[in-house]
């Protein structure tokens, strides 16, 4: 293999890593679009635009727009008081999570940069841990709600909001001081 071929091979490997991560973003965006039973043109457009921005420039707010569009599509598909099938819920939750985390990885790995194997390995391991914890919590909440009233759900949701907003604010405040 001469020097030119070696350079071409190196360039191909570099681009493959970045493109692979962005391909996951596209697939997750497609899943967000496909899983809801019905499609509203406005939310679909917002989601598509968000995914395109997330793929083209992951450090912009494309993922946020796509997540918002996906949530809007969910409401448009199932209404305000419906109960979607569990398979759809699980698939859509996975799609939203995958879109979020793959865009975060794409933002950290610019195109044309060589990616060592440790990066996707560590990233996937963390995804696995988070999804396992989320699965356990989801199963627990599913059982809790089935055996109790809607007031439990209200309390659970409020606690979740407080936890979600409070923990990052507290942690970031501590790390700055």
């Amino acid at each position, binding site marked *: 293999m001469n020097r030119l071929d070696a350079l071409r091979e190196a360039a191909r490997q570099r681009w493959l890593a970045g493109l692979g991560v962005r391909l996951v973003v596209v697939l997750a965006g497609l899943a967000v679009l496909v899983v809801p039973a019905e499609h509203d043109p406005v939310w679909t457009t917002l989601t598509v635009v968000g995914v395109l921005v997330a793929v083209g420039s992951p450090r912009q707010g494309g993922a946020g727009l796509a997540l918002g569009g996906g949530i809007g599509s969910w409401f448009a598909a199932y209404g305000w008081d419906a109960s979607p099938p569990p398979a759809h*819920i699980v698939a859509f939750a996975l799609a939203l999570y995958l879109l979020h*985390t793959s865009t975060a990885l794409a933002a950290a790995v610019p195109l044309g940069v060589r990616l060592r194997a440790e990066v996707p390995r560590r990233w996937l391991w963390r995804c696995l841990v988070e999804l396992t914890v989320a699965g356990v919590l989801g199963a627990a909440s599913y059982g809790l709600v089935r055996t109790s009233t809607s007031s439990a759900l209200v309390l659970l949701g409020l606690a979740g909001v407080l936890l979600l907003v409070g923990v990052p604010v507290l942690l970031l405040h501590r790390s700055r001081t």
Partner: protein
Amino acid sequence: MTAGPDPVPAARWSPTVALGSALGSTALLLAFAVLLARQDLLLLALPLAVGTVLPLLDRPRRLPAVRVATGAATLFEGQSSTYRQRLSVPDGLDVIRLRTRLEGWVELPDGGQDFCTAAGPDTELSFEHRLFAPRWGRSRIGRVGITVTAAHGLLRGSLTDPAMVPVATIPLRAGFSATDAVPTAVGIVGGHRSRRIGEGIDPAGVRPFVAGDRLRRIHWPVSQRTGELHVATTYSDRDTEVVLVLDSAVEVGLSAGPESASNLDVAVRAAASIAEHYLRHGDRVAVLDLGRAGRPVRARTGQAHLFRILDVLLDVRPAPVSELAVGRALARINSRALVVVLSPLLNTAVAAETAGLSRAGRSVLVVDTLPADVRLPERGPWLELAWRLQLLERSNLAAALADHGVPVVPWLGSGSLDQVLVGLSRTARAARVHR
């Protein structure tokens, strides 16, 4: 050679857009889950919420530190060495991007200039990359920019390690050799045959014995045949002084390693080869870069002097040549030295001074350093025509120099100066008319 930072700097983390979008989406889903009493929205929010809270609880506090080193501080052209990065990671990081700055003529062909890795807490990582030096010159490598992404893409931090490691790439010396004939040998010991009879090894002839001759010089076969004592005579050994004059007024051609050379590349490589050859034979070599005519390398001998010359050659750059300074510098050259002018013959002033040296009785030869196929930059439709005119003028200059008795030879590596040196020696031996 090694360079690197000292203590681990304090971390300065900033939230990424991913943190904002995850927080916003999760809060939206949870708020609607509460307001509408919808369990599906709670389940949708769970992975995002867990994916936000868990990484932040395990967030890093310190940034990594890097130490860089090269396998060798000095390389030859086309030679490879190693470039090592040792990374100390105190806290676990998901993505560590390392960008190395390369100044000068060094390359990291296997992608070590910009890559991403990951590490767990209290990890020492070591990366070794191939460091390739395609062209002579001074280079530096280092100033590693580290961008880290932690907490599963929710936090970002960066720092730059300012340390740089110098790498010197010395010109390729292509096994140059030349005849030992020199026009004027000046020293009393050395590797060249002089024109005088004396102590040496090259036979000059056989003559009758006279009082004072050494007995061991008696040539017995001739003595026996003639019946009278005869002695063998030899030419004495002498050394010489070689002055290498580099015309660095202009640089023509694309300088990009061994495949593509500019006239300066050819000149520097030729100067290194010629200097090595004559210093190896015990001669004294001086170097005069016309771009820095006020700072010549004086004639010395020995291996240390070769290193000094190579070191000076690393700094050769195109520079305006002052006619006055060139005239002064050339006038100081030893009158018995062999002057080798390495020039592309594109500068009239340098050619005029060279002809002046020859007129003054010096032994001068010009090595044409213009590459055979010059790559010119694309600068308009008139460039080719202008270049052809320049080449015509160059031919005229070469012819004028030949008329002044200055031979012009192209640089072809080993043996390319032999014929000219023999010719110059004959010229120097020829009888001269003294007015």
